[in-house]
């Protein structure tokens, strides 16, 4: 009787462990997307066959916290695109709430700020949901593993939004350097203030 009891406990534990690890795996897998860029063309991850990874930044025009970052996004793309890790910015804001984030306004913003990376319009908010992006700016570093895109970092771009000159930790940059060196990402998740991406209720 005792052995049956302990065996059943063992099975239940194993079951819990296995379902948990499956859930985690599904959480981290990213599905490729196809979104309209500010230049009128559509962009997918598969358009970059040589990319080792991507820096994906959910951002937008209207959010004052996101407005602090365009120069730093340009720098990140300058630094990492040549190393096979391009940056892609995505706006998933509900345009019913913010006129500033409509497609024509994204085009204007990208031109004004001289974006050197795609700025994609996630009109249906599906990509933000897939990434579980919750605010702007919300950065992700995804990496190619066995032909799958896996999230390796998510959170803040760095540790000081308001004063770029006082940044002591560039989280995204550090994560990409670690991945390029085949190392584990030491800080794989961080938190920062941002504007909520309000998902439209169906």
């Amino acid at each position: 009787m005792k052995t049956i009891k302990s065996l059943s406990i063992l099975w239940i534990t194993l079951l819990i462990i296995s379902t948990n690890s499956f859930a985690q795996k599904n959480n981290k897998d990213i599905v490729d997307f196809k979104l309209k860029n500010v230049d009128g063309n559509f962009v997918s991850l598969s358009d970059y066959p040589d990319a080792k990874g991507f820096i994906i930044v959910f951002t937008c025009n209207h959010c004052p916290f996101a407005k602090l970052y365009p120069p730093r996004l340009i720098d990140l793309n300058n630094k990492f695109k040549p190393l096979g890790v391009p940056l892609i910015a995505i706006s998933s804001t509900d345009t019913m709430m913010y006129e500033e984030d409509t497609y024509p306004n994204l085009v204007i913003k990208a031109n004004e700020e001289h974006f050197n990376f795609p700025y994609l319009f996630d009109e249906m908010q599906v990509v933000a949901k897939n990434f579980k992006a919750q605010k702007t700016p919300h950065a992700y570093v995804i990496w190619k593993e066995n032909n799958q895109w896996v999230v390796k970092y998510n959170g803040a771009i760095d540790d000081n939004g308001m004063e770029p000159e006082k940044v002591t930790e560039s989280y995204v940059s550090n994560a990409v350097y670690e991945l390029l060196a085949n190392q584990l990402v030491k800080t794989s998740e961080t938190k920062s203030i941002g504007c909520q991406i309000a998902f439209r209720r169906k």
Partner: protein
Amino acid sequence: MRRFFIYLFMHIKLVIILVFFFIAHKPIAQNIQVLKFDALKQCIYNNSDTVYVVNFFASWCKPCIKEIPEFVNFAKGIKNSKIKLVFVSLDSKNDPEKLLKIIQQYSLQNVYLLDETNANNWINKIDKHWSGAIPATLIIKKGKNKKFIVDAISCETLFKFTK
């Protein structure tokens, strides 16, 4: 002589404590106090009977400002009760003009400005599932989180969760 020194010492100590208090709670204006996260924690997490409703907002956050009238109505309904409404502004302390205007416009009470540059150091201490998106409202009972809503909130919901 010795007594004199003891008195002197006590006075100096008092002055130091007072100075420290003012440094820790620098008021920018009458209704707003600048503080670090640890000081905020002491204000909202304690064992008293008071229920704390803590609204995290910023003057630059549109949906946050839109929901302020809900909090104003809620504040009217909780007078003489053991519920305390607290606003935590995530604005920059170097640029409080817009915030001061909002405080004045709605006559907000109990406004704290959080003096932290790296949100990664404190967000998890509020709720480890919170990404940092605002508006967000926290309800604390007896030093423990009772409800945390990362979205705009209505006056009715506030009453429901503080009952």
